[in-house]
């Protein structure tokens, strides 16, 4: 493999890994803030236990999200320096804003929340978790705006002398429909993920008969959040698909493996095709559904891969403008499939919880524990689809991925760092999962050292979550 392929693999590994933790962080931040608020308002101890129990899980997850995020910001310069030179004038701005507006807020107020239990007035302490949560939201917004610009560059001119794209309209970059649609697709997905995490763990607590008083409430909170989120996700996903069809028709064509332009195009639920994905052998179709998804009209015309390839050759010169079609086809379906599977779980569990019931069924109840993995898979496939089906472009129509790689970094160096990051990430995943399982196994605890005069009163540090 050359340094380009290795750098692509490294980006894929570090980014998919990072994004396992990010949506849990965003979703859980708001859920924990909600539980904390419930405790603040009602003074009911079950809410305090829930805040601390899920707060611990949230922090264990947050730590890895933060540290793997540093790599994200550095690797553009390290492995993709030609890309960085080309886009820096535009792409750097949202990244810098993310740091100034979001990272400081997130880290500072989370520190205040973790260590502030007996230091801050209760209202300020509550405000600090909300501010930290807001920080995660702002962070997501800026990075999604930067990504949206790669999908659909706006507000720029191309400077041929300097061979780079230059910003002309920051407002266009930050408020274009691609950015907004992605934001309203990704954020509810994060809520969905955090909620599935909470629901899965709560279900396990109920099965193990640990603090059912608390767990029933958090299970319901998780399940309802999941159902509300999936509605928003579907809605914004629908809008995203239409925007995508207009802006990146090749991506939509690849998602459906639609080779020839056609009207009333069907959406296939299942295709068994030849291995290279060029022809289908067996297919179950929803008639006209693809046309509806991409244009809002059942009779709408959807452009096919072959026609787009010919069109792009005319527009951008000779070359292969077709992404990996089987990957696009399957990742698109797996994203949607896992999303709805999670929602189905939530619906069924909530149905069983009517009139004081609990999730039951020989398979169903134990399966609830695996609920968190469902949105994690949906998220990963969603991003794999979004990023790989844009190929060969790094920024659509402007710079190809192959032109973005660092010229001075050897394949050996990229391979070395890739192996090292992968090994390190693997070890961290192992440790993190171990810690999370331990927290779950312990279950919610009465925090005896919270405001316990026997331990020395207010001079004692409340180290429930601290170091």
């Amino acid at each position, binding site marked *: 493999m050359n340094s380009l392929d290795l750098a692509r693999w490294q980006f894929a590994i570090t980014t998919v890994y990072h994004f396992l933790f990010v949506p849990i962080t965003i979703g859980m931040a708001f859920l924990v803030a909600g539980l904390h608020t419930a405790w603040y308002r009602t003074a009911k101890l079950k809410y305090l236990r829930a805040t601390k129990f899920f707060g611990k899980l949230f922090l264990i997850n947050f730590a890895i999200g933060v540290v793997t995020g540093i790599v994200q910001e550095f690797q553009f310069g390290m492995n993709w320096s030609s890309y960085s030179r080309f886009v820096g004038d535009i792409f750097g701005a949202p990244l810098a804003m993310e740091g100034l507006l979001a990272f*400081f807020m997130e880290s500072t107020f989370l520190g205040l929340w973790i260590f502030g239990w007996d230091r801050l007035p209760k209202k300020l302490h509550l405000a600090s978790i909300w501010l930290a949560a807001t920080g995660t939201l702002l962070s997501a917004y800026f990075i999604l705006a930067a990504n949206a610009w790669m999908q659909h560059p706006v507000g720029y001119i191309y400077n041929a002398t300097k061979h780079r794209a230059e910003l002309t309209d920051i407002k266009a970059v930050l408020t274009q429909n691609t950015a907004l649609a992605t934001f309203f697709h990704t954020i509810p997905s994060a809520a969905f993920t955090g909620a599935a995490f909470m629901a899965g763990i709560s279900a396990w607590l109920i099965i193990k008969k640990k603090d059912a008083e608390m767990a029933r409430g958090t299970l319901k909170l998780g399940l309802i959040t999941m159902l509300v989120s999936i509605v928003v996700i579907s809605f914004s996903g629908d809008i995203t698909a239409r925007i995508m069809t207009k802006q990146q028709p090749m991506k939509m064509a690849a998602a459906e493996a639609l080779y020839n332009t056609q009207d009333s195009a069907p959406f296939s639920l299942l295709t068994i095709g030849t291995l290279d994905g060029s022809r289908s052998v067996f297919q179950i179709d929803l008639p006209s559904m693809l046309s509806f998804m991409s244009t809002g009209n059942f009779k709408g015309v959807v452009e096919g891969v072959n026609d787009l390839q010919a069109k792009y050759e005319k527009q951008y010169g000779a070359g292969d403008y077709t992404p990996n079609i089987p990957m696009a086809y399957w990742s698109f379906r797996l994203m949607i499939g896992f999303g709805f599977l999670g929602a189905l779980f939530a619906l069924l569990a909530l149905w069983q919880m009517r009139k004081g019931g609990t999730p039951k069924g020989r398979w169903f109840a134990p399966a609830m524990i695996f609920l968190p993995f469902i949105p994690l898979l949906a998220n990963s496939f969603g991003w794999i689809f979004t990023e790989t089906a844009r190929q060969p472009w790094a920024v659509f129509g402007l710079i190809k991925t192959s032109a973005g790689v660092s010229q001075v970094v050897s394949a050996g160096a990229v391979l070395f760092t890739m192996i090292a990051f992968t090994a390190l990430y693997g070890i961290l995943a192992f440790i993190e999962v171990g810690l999370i399982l331990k927290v779950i196994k312990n279950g919610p605890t009465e925090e005896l050292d919270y405001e316990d005069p026997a331990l020395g009163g207010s001079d004692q540090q409340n180290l429930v979550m601290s170091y």
Partner: protein
Amino acid sequence: MTFQSTWFLLIAVLWIGYFILEGFDFGVGMLLPFVSRNEADRRAVLTTLGPVWDGNEVWLLVAGGATFAAFPEWYATLFSGFYLPLFLILVSLIVRGVAFEYRSKYGKAQWRQRWDIAIFVSSLLPALLWGVAFANIVRGVPLEKAASGSIEYTGGFLNLLNPYALLGGVVTLTVFITHGAVFLSLKTAGTIRDRAQGIAKLFGLIAAIAAVSFLLWTNLSLPEIKPVVLVLSIAVALFWVAGMAMNFIRREGWAFIFSALTILTFVTTLFTALYPRVMPSSLGAQFDLTITNASSTQYTLKVMTVVAVIMTPIVLIYQGWTYWVFRKRVSASQIAHPERGVLDQVSHTLQQ
């Protein structure tokens, strides 16, 4: 002042913030095994960093992001050129962050010892490597115009390990150890405070020798003597002496202020020596990256200036407020059950 100069200044400010703040984090991380005699000590030492280290590290992320936005050519050449040192720094920062968060979760001695070693190594490496990296930037590294027209680093890894750069690494390493010791003596009580003060005395001296030699070398190797750089270098030395004197008479607050001022002036010296270059080439001035040929457009710089002017004071206020909230000294006696990890607390599990 042009927007380019403004951003050169702002990036210098971000690095100053980063080195003052994470500088003491690194120092404390390295001193953890040496100022502590028992588990309660170690917990107390870590608690001084707990609420603030993550916010301190954000200064680096913003410095990186700001360089990307304001001087993309600098960001691209530097990060791809200094590939392996940056990789080592990244790995350290990953391990370190996780180590802080996880080490006290369990009470098991072996678990904690391993994380303590991780904290030590992952604090030492970046403290050393940042000095090596900055000294190389100031000294100039082999930069050439590539076929693509961009200025690229052509030196390889070993080129970065020259004597001047290594001395720069020793300077940041010893300055951060001292700075961390001063911070600890300010933030702790009892025996930790005494030990930290003693370490600050010793390393203050070593750092002084290293820093003075480094600054002399820097001044002598500039193409022409810059009076401002010379004056700043002298200010670095004076602040350091003042800081060490304050440490000696145990005026800990003042000692910390002076060691922070030393770092501020030291970084300012380096950036002043660079200006208006951002990455000089050792192969000829025509290959220098400067604030002009490395910068973004005026429009981008203007947008970013507006954001920075509004946000930086706000950030300083709330980050400063955090330090105020946690201003109390931490003592080992405050740690109720030092040997108990949060996840060991199974005895109170609610059964229903």
